[in-house]
C-alpha cells in the first residue's frame, strides 16, 4: 500500500510542478497583452485628438470667413488689428530676439546638491517680457508660446511654465516691435541686468534683431467679458446682459 501511495504522491508532485509552470507562462502573455491594449488606446486617442483639432481649425477658418463676409471691409480690418494686438491672431514682422539660457549648474561633490544659481528663473523671463512691452513691443512669444494680456510666467519646481505649459532652456523671447528694439533692450535696465548675470554666473544672454518672424496665435485665450453691441431683446431669467469682469489672478507677462 505504502509504495503505491508514495508513487501517487510523486505523481501529484509532477502534476503540481507542471501546473505551476503552465500558470506562470500563461500569466506573461496576459500582462503584455494588457500593455499592448493600453498602447493601442493611447494611439487611438492621439489620432482622435488630432482629428478633432483639425476639425476645430477648419471650423475656426469657416467662422473667420463668414465673419469677414458679414462685417465688411473696415470693421473686419479693425477686428484683425484687435486680434493681432490681443494675441488671438498670428502676426508677422520684424523685431528683437532675446535668448536666455541656463548657465552651468555644478553638483557639489560633498553634499551632492546642485547649485542652481545660474538657472533662468520665472522672474528673469518676466523682467525680459516687461522690458520688451515697455519698449514698444507689439507681440511677444516665449519659445513659440504667444503671450497675451492674461498670460502667466511662473516657476513650478525646476520648470518654468508659460500659461501652464512648460518651457525649457534656452529661452527665446521673440518680440515684434520697433526696429531698434534689440539695441534698446540691450541698453536698458533689463539688458544691463542680464549682462551682469551672464558675466557673474555664466548664464548666456543675447539680444539680436530679427526680421520677418511669424508669431503664432495664443493657444488658449478664454473669453472673460463679452458685451453685446446691440441690446438684446431682454431674455427672461437673466439678471443682466452685462457680465462683470472677474478679478483675474494673472501676473507676470505684462
Amino acid at each position: 500500500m505504502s509504495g503505491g501511495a508514495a508513487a501517487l504522491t510523486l505523481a501529484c508532485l509532477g502534476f503540481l510542478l507542471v501546473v505551476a509552470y503552465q500558470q506562470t507562462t500563461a500569466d506573461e502573455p496576459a500582462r503584455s497583452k494588457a500593455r499592448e491594449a493600453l498602447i493601442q488606446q493611447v494611439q487611438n486617442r492621439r489620432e482622435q485628438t488630432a482629428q478633432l483639432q483639425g476639425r476645430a481649425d477648419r471650423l475656426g477658418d469657416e467662422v473667420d470667413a463668414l465673419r469677414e463676409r458679414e462685417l465688411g471691409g473696415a470693421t473686419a480690418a479693425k477686428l484683425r488689428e484687435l486680434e493681432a494686438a490681443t494675441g488671438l491672431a498670428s502676426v508677422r514682422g520684424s523685431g528683437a530676439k532675446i535668448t536666455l539660457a541656463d548657465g552651468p549648474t555644478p553638483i557639489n561633490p560633498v553634499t551632492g546638491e546642485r547649485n542652481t544659481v545660474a538657472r533662468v528663473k520665472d522672474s528673469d523671463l518676466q523682467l525680459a517680457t516687461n522690458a520688451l512691452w515697455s519698449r514698444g513691443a507689439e507681440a511677444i512669444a516665449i519659445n513659440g508660446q504667444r503671450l497675451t494680456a492674461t498670460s502667466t510666467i511662473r516657476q513650478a519646481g525646476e520648470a518654468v511654465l508659460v500659461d501652464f505649459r512648460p518651457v525649457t532652456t534656452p529661452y527665446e523671447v521673440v518680440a515684434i516691435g520697433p526696429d531698434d528694439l534689440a539695441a534698446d533692450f540691450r541698453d536698458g535696465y533689463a539688458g544691463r541686468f542680464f549682462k551682469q548675470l551672464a558675466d557673474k554666473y555664466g548664464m548666456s544672454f543675447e539680444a539680436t534683431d530679427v526680421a520677418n518672424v511669424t508669431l503664432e496665435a495664443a493657444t488658449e485665450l478664454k473669453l472673460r467679458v463679452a458685451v453685446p453691441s446691440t441690446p438684446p431683446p431682454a431674455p427672461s431669467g437673466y439678471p443682466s446682459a452685462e457680465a462683470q469682469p472677474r478679478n483675474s489672478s494673472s501676473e507676470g507677462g505684462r
Partner: protein
Amino acid sequence: MIAVLALFAGVLLGIVLHPTVPVALQPYLPIAVVAALDAVFGGVRAKLDGIFDDKQFVISFISNVLVAALIVYLGDQLGVGTQLSTGVVVVLGVRIFGNVAAIRRHLFSA
C-alpha cells in the same frame, strides 16, 4: 524506478489535462510547489540516510502542503498574505538547503 515513472506520469497528466487554476487558488500555487519540493528533498535525504519510510513521506508531503496553504490563507484573511507567503518560502527554503546539503554530503562526501 517506480518513483521516477510516477513523477513522469504526473508531468504527462498535467500536460495532457492542462488544468486552469482558479483565481482564488493562485496565491497558493507557488507555496504548494515549494512545500512539495521540501518533501521531495526530505525524502531523498531519508533514502540516502537509509531511514526512508513511505508512510512518513506521504504524510509529510500532504501535511507540508496543507500547513503552507493554511498559513497563506490565514495571512490573506489578516491582510498580510504576501508577508506570510514570504515567511513560508523562507522557512521551507532554509529546510530545502539543509536537506540538499545533507544529500551532497552523502553523494560527494564533501
